[in-house]
């Protein structure tokens, strides 16, 4: 089963062009959707999660026409939105049970087992009797994951899931996801490059509604290998370098600035080759096609 997205476009009433002719094929396994804030990630995710209507285009999940047969999608969907709230005065166990019913798990015993298992898996078991109103951001996020995992979904969409998690939680969560990816389509939207590089077998980079790159992370890294160089410079010198080279990223290091530059050949003696990472791929793609304009209003 794979998810096939073809020519998806969406313009909001305020004129924002959120998706521009997006075409993607997402196979089983983890798929990373990488892009800056406002790139159109959430719009795409919500469209896949049956919550939004594109202007044009089609989406198919296996035999299911996602845009038409929403009920069928929902039966096999696990969705964790970027931002969500919970009923504050209900315990985690109780609400998870309620969601399980809503997901069609009607056998009481099975449901109980599943709820317990998910609470264990998301490390919420000890807090299961507590009201959700008292949960921290990370706990709430894990609760959301538990909800998404109810009912053995075949399509899992997680929108910016690691945003509020501390490092340990993040690791746990990503582990969980990667296990799921073994027999589902898991789409992970994020602006954190490490999330993708650590987990995903395939990825796409999206900016301003357009897919800039669709690739396997390793292959993509392979493409830039040997073509990214770094140099430590003074901050004041940055504009000069930006004029002379294709600077793809800058970073502070010990009070000075490290720049990464894309170039087929070594741009100068001061430059050292970089052991290319996905981040370099990301910045190359972002810089290569478009200047560094930030942010489009809606996402």
């Amino acid at each position: 089963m794979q998810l096939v997205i073809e020519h998806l476009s969406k313009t909001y009433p305020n004129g924002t062009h959120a998706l521009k002719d997006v075409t993607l094929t997402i196979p089983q396994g983890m798929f990373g959707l990488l892009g800056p804030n406002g790139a159109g990630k959430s719009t795409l995710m919500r469209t896949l999660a049956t919550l939004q209507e594109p202007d044009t285009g089609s989406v198919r999940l296996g035999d299911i026409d996602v845009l038409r047969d929403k009920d069928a999608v929902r039966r096999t969907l696990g969705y964790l939105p970027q931002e969500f709230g919970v009923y504050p005065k209900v315990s985690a166990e109780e609400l998870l049970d309620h969601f399980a019913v809503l997901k069609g798990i009607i056998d009481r015993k099975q449901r109980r087992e599943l709820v317990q298992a998910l609470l264990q898996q998301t490390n919420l078991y000890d807090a299961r009797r507590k009201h959700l109103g008292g949960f921290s951001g990370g706990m709430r996020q894990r609760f959301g994951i538990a909800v998404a995992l109810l009912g053995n979904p075949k399509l899992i969409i997680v929108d910016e899931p690691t945003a509020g998690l501390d490092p340990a939680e993040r690791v746990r969560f990503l582990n969980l996801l990667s296990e799921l990816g073994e027999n589902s389509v898991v789409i992970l939207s994020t602006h954190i490059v490490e999330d993708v590089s650590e987990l995903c077998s395939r990825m796409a980079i999206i900016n301003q509604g357009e897919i800039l790159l669709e690739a396997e992370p390793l292959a993509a890294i392979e493409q830039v290998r040997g073509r990214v160089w770094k140099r430590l410079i003074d901050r004041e010198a940055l504009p000069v370098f930006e004029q002379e080279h294709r600077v793809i990223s800058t970073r502070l290091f010990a009070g000075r600035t490290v720049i990464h530059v894309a170039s087929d050949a070594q741009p100068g003696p001061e430059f050292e080759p970089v052991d290319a990472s996905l981040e370099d791929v990301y910045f190359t793609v972002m810089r290569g096609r478009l200047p560094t304009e930030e942010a489009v209003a809606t996402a």
Partner: protein
Amino acid sequence: MFAHIVGFEIRQGMRRISTWLYFGIFFGLGFLLINVAGGAFRDFAPTTGGNEFANSPVALAAWTALLSVFGLMVTAAVVGNAAHRDFATGIHPLFFTTPVRKRDYLGGRFTGAVLVNLIIFLGVPLGIMLGSMMPYLERTRFGPFRLAAYAQPFLVFTIPNLLLTGAIFFALAALTRQMLSNYVGGVVLLVGYLLSSQLLRDIENKRVAALVDPFGVRAVSLDTRYWSVAEKNSRLVPFFEGLVAGNRLLWLAAAALVFGLVYSRFRFAHHAPALRRRARAAIEPLVRAVPAPLAIPMVARDFGARAWWMQWTSTVRREFWGIVRNVYFAALVLAGLAFVVFSATQLGKIYGTTTYPVTYQVLELLSGTFALFLLIIITFYAGELVWRERELRANQIHDALPIPTWVPFLAKLTALALVVLVVLALLLMCGVVTQAAKGYFRFELAQYVRELFGIQFVDYLLLGVLALTVHTLVNHKYVGHLIVVLFFVFTGFMSQLGLEHNLYKYGSDGGVVYSDMNGYGHFLRSWSWWKLYWGAFAVLLAVATNLFWVRGQETGAGRRLRLAQARFGRTPQTIAAVAAISFLGLGGWVFYNTNVQNEYRTSKQQEAAIAGYEKKYKRYEHAPQPRITAADLHVDIFPERRDVLARGTYRLQNKTRVPVDSVHVQLPRDTEIRRLAFSRGHRQVLEDQELGYRIFALDEPLQPGDSLVLLFDLAYLSRGFENETGGTQVVNNGTFFNNAFLPSVGYNARQELQEDDARKKYGLKPRPRMAPVNDLRARQNSYISNDADWIDFRATVSTSPDQIAIAPGYLQREWTQGGRRYFAYAMDAPILNFYSFLSARYAVKRDRWNDVAIEVYYHPGHEYNLERMIGATKKSLDYYTANFGPYQHRQVRILEFPRYAAFAQSFPNTIPYSESIGFIARVKGPDAIDYPFYVTAHEVAHQWWAHQVIGGNVQGSTMLSETMSQYAALMVMEKEFGRANMKRFLKYELDEYLTGRAFEQKKELPLMLVENQQYIHYNKGSLAMYALRDLIGEERLNQALARYVQAVKFQQPPYTNSVEFLSYVRAATPDSLRYALTDLFETITLWDNRTQAASVTPLAGGRYAVELNLQARKMRADSLGNETPVQMNDLVDIGVFAPARRGEKEGRLLYLRKHRVRSGNQRIRVEVGERPARAGIDPLHKLIDRITDDNVVSVRDARVTPAAAGPV
């Protein structure tokens, strides 16, 4: 900084669409109101209104005040939002960490929001102004444009109310950081407003009532309640004195206090300050070691009916408990219940006296007073339910779940229904507790259940569906609330727009009235059909709601429409089709019942028909007609079928001096005529079914003095049901109707249109309400009947075997035949052509007074006041026979009838008496006005004053029957309860008179020219006769009355009039007092008496001198209330009171004597034997004085404060 925040807030407000939508709604309401008042809908609706201008300052003030109550909802949204927005969006930490001062933040937000809200409310005066300029309105209904009349109420009501409600909402939202609390605040304010209306049931409470209404509506209506039409049209409401000023000051202070509170309690903190115990800080268990690899058990899933059922129940549980467990729900319900409990103390007050808490009364009170709360609960929680997931931001998860869209919708509707059920159950408990607390233990639980969970629940369920639909379609929470409320308002307005048929009033029915006597009677059947009809419509609404249910992020209209189309699959199509067909089918059935089986006329059509009657047949008004001299009737009442068959004969005699060649017979329209014939040759020359008018030409003219017989056989069959409650005359238990359903002879001018405005519409000339007092031609008829004088009467009445049937007269024979019970009655003396028929399952209580049999026919269970009624009858017979003349009958019968009407009426020796006005009265305490006693005495007096003395069909004649019956009853009451007790009664009479004249539609007249105006012949009549008795003495007055009765009783035409009556009274009045006859009877006279100060000086011998500083004025008013001062030189009571002892409201009278009082300031000195406490002029309120509070003042010691005695 402050200005910046204000400006920011205003810009924000102006940018919101909802602001302009609210403005539009208020503008539209103002526009609509003035259009209705200005006669814009005169082509669709019946004519209303009198001489008061549509844009009179009082009307503008009242509307402004009322709409500012309504504006509560907008203020909750606009001002509440200004405080809440930052918390809702979570941006508050950003604001709170800027160096902005609390003063600027709170003050600026509040000021800005209030200004935005003011712009919205500006829509009201602007709408009214523009509306009143519309060219199609009737200019005669408008006075000159006065800017002050708009500006003043805006300044005095709109702005202070906004400051108050705004402060409260702002404070609640800022301190609790939740919008929910705002609704509770709104409800508490409303409770104050409602409380004041409850308090007003007893005029003793008016001061408190005016103050507790936070909106000032009550205060302005109390301040202007006695204003005549002339004053209403010309005077601006005096805002800086009286109750309004006090009210405004009080509530402005409250607003300041509230704002002060929020200022002092508000903290720039991330979490709300602990108003109550907060949820504990987040619990963060330690991250434990990574557990075993992912092992999520595989589960079976079900997406079929079983799953839907479980999903539905699970969601219902979630939603229901979510609402009910919330503290605000408890607050909302408690506020409502507290109000209900308070209202219960005022249960059924008439003249300040309460009734027994019988179940229907309690239910009516509970559900009536609580209805508003339920509407609020439904409107509000419908919004909450629709918005719940979105406000929790859980909507994305929810919307992507594999459940059909209709499951959450249906679950939310169910939860709403459950909430209503819970509230109704609480009401039930409240009702039972109320009854028990009042020492009443006849609990009729079945009745509670039927009314609350049967009838009312269905209504609320229908409203719940509508509210969910509106909230779903509108998709803006506050606008949704407002639209639901507008719907309620609009439903109330529909009839004024000419929309009267229940077929287009969502959720309506023909009406259901429960009566102890008749239960739900025949109403339930029609009610069920109406509810099925609206139920089908509600299903359509539900389908629409489902189609448009917001699921997902698409909220644009176009997208939603497309989504709805996509959702409109086979199942919704089928449901919609079935519902639509049912709706149409049921509508057809209802229409068949209301408009085919029964005749349906809108008020407007009714008006047109009446106009048509006059146009067609007025020319026959003076055609010579024979008069009824005898009626011999056989009436069969079928209570179960609600049918009546009436056959019988009239003897008609030509009492004119010319031969009569044709007889005009009128019958009600829906009569089925089986026979209508004369005892001699005749043919029908005109038959007008529509107007019920028929003319028969006699083959041989009827010569003067000759008689003929009219034979008739008529049927009145009830078919199906009507649009309105209607048909409450013939019912399963408690039938009561009078001879209006039988044939009458000749044109009846009394049926003509009265309103000049309405007459103009149909091209009819204005018509005097009644003929002039001396009009001899009009005096050929009594004011009761235009086709008979005194008639011989006999009737046989039959009914079901378990009922007793009654007609005037004496029972001759009673028998059973063919499973029916027959009663033959005959009258031994001639009576007015005015009689009634009753039938019910009666119990009878019998007694005697001399040779007069007294019988009370009552509903078993209503025994409470039988003794009072019998006692009153005896005392009345004592007094009336001693003072007015002998009683013409040998029995007095009082008969209970269901509460479909709330009056008692005197027929010859027969007094039908509504179950609601005396049978369940609870006269408690020595001060209580015993109105069962009073009503009985009044009705018994009619046996003299109406059934012996009857005035001609001219002005002043109702004085001869109603005023005199009031006087007679007053005298009997005074004998029974003492003079002191009369003061309270007369206070009500004064209030009713002054209020009544303020609402006069045409013209006020002096008592002797009264044109059947109740506030004159009852209320002013009581005051005038009591004052006259006080001046010339009871004995002397009664002697004159007895002479008059003797002279005119049972007279033939021309009938007596008030001029003749007064001539007897005048003869008995000394010259020095005749001025009083002019003041009381011949003119509209008002006094303005006040005591400016009273001082006391101890004298030798333990006596005290009291010096009063008085100011007196006397005015004559014209028919519109324009007043002219006249010279006063009247005998007026001066009274001095002792200090009140424990338990007394006021002290004993130490002195009460009449003194000559002139116009202007003067001093009067009297001596008393004990230390006085209070003193003043006219202390018992015998004169018509609009301000009675200033008549009596506390007496001050002359030596301690010598200045007090000086001129003020």
